[in-house]
């Protein structure tokens, strides 16, 4: 009974915190929720315009390719950079009230995830509309096309777990070692170029491919490219490397958080 109440409260609290994150972000912004979609579109247009001259990606539509990769990447990078200093920013609350602290990080990630899903649904709508009206897909072709999108579910789950695990790890360490925040800011910037968002993996020399798969984001972005645009996954067996890495990082991040959590009050 008590345990059930506790779990219920944990869930309610997480929902309320996530709601707060979503509401507070666009309060008093005239364009409000429009920013969810405006931001990646502008990014896509500018990057697409510049990079199409440098990166000879062999896909029909480089702009769509960019967009399909930028959405998950933005979710990941924004969640990580925002949640890393989160415990430090919420020190007032942590030092003065007892509540499930992981919800600080989780609410940031889930509110970003909500925004990401909205943008993703709009992209899917645009893709299906394109196939229907401009490429005159028949019904069977369309069913095939849409059923491939079911691959989005494993991709989303992997992305979510990876982001949560890594963010719990960095945000917990940042309580004591404030350099972590700066390291992450730099790392995310470099990480972007180590992930096939603006380029495709098959443009690189073949011996480099396995190294790129040590980066779980490579696998995740390729899964998105596959599900949304039907591009093949370069090394299909290496998906398991990412799955194992992500489970490991999630577990590790959770353990570090559990261990450091009891000492947060002493270091903030």
């Amino acid at each position, binding site marked *: 009974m008590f345990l059930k109440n506790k779990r219920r409260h944990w869930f309610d609290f997480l929902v309320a915190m996530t709601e707060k994150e979503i509401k*507070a972000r666009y309060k008093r912004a005239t364009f409000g929720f429009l920013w969810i979609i405006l931001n990646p579109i502008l990014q896509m247009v500018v990057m697409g315009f510049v990079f199409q001259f440098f990166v000879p990606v062999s896909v029909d539509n480089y702009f769509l390719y960019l967009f399909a990769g930028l959405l998950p990447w933005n979710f990941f990078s924004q969640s990580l950079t925002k949640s890393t200093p989160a415990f430090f920013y919420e020190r007032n609350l942590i030092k003065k009230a007892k509540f499930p602290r992981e919800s600080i990080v989780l609410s940031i990630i889930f509110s970003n995830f909500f925004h990401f899903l909205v943008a993703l649904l709009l992209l899917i709508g645009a893709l299906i509309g394109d196939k229907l009206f401009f490429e005159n897909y028949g019904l069977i072709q369309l069913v095939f096309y849409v059923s491939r999108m079911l691959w989005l579910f494993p991709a989303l789950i992997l992305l979510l777990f990876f982001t949560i695990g890594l963010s719990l790890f960095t945000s917990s360490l940042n309580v004591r070692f404030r350099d972590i925040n700066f390291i992450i800011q730099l790392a995310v910037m470099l990480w972007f170029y180590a992930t096939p968002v603006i380029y495709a993996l098959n443009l690189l020399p073949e011996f480099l491919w396995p190294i790129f798969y040590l980066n779980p984001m490579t696998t995740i972005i390729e899964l998105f490219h596959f599900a949304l645009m039907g591009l093949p996954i370069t090394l299909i067996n290496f998906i398991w490397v990412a799955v194992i890495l992500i489970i490991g990082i999630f577990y590790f991040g959770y353990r570090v958080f559990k261990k450091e959590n009891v000492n947060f009050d*002493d270091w903030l």
Partner: protein
Amino acid sequence: MTVFKEKTLRNRKKSGEVVINLTDVSKKYIITHDKPTLIEDVNRILRFEKKEEYWALENVNLKIHKGEKIGLFGANGAGKTTLLKIIARISSPTSGKVQTKGRIISLIDLAAGFHPDLTGQENIFLNGLVIGMSREEIRDKFNQIIDFAGIGDFVTAPLYTYSNGMKLRLGFSIAIHAKPNILLLDEVMSMGDRDFQEKSRQVMKKMFNNDVTLILVSHFVDHLKKYCNRLIEISK
């Protein structure tokens, strides 16, 4: 060694049930001065130095029974707030055991869980959840909370439009409507205007006669004498 000097003012009928039980609780803080923790750690390892330590609490043993009203006072730095934080489980003891029974609500800062851009209503829900209420409870008590805080039409206005007094009143109002089994109050009795102080005094008096276990921290011993049946002076 942390020393407790105790004095019982009024005898209440003791229910016998121990709701807070601290056994050999100690709390150590590590002093870091101005250097970043990473440099300090590396330095220490290179020079084989020990960490600089500070014991805020040493071997504290404390049993509090259900319904007792404790007044806690002592010099600055004696460990009053540390003790409250350990009971509330905001902080964890370096050694020793902490056992508590029931819902604990700690008011170390009344406005800690508020967000300036959200409305009063949204903040009531958020803060209520922060201190451990369920959604249904907050919904049931919603009108009472607003009435007691006396914020009127401001309930739909964002919190940054509130005066400091209004924020404190709202925080206090949420806390007393949360039906705690154990209530920890840190220097919060001297806030708000005269009207509100009178109102909170009434609430405190009412609490004296019910089952809520109360720990009140204040420098004003006269205050404590009014509301408490057991005074504890804490010192090094």
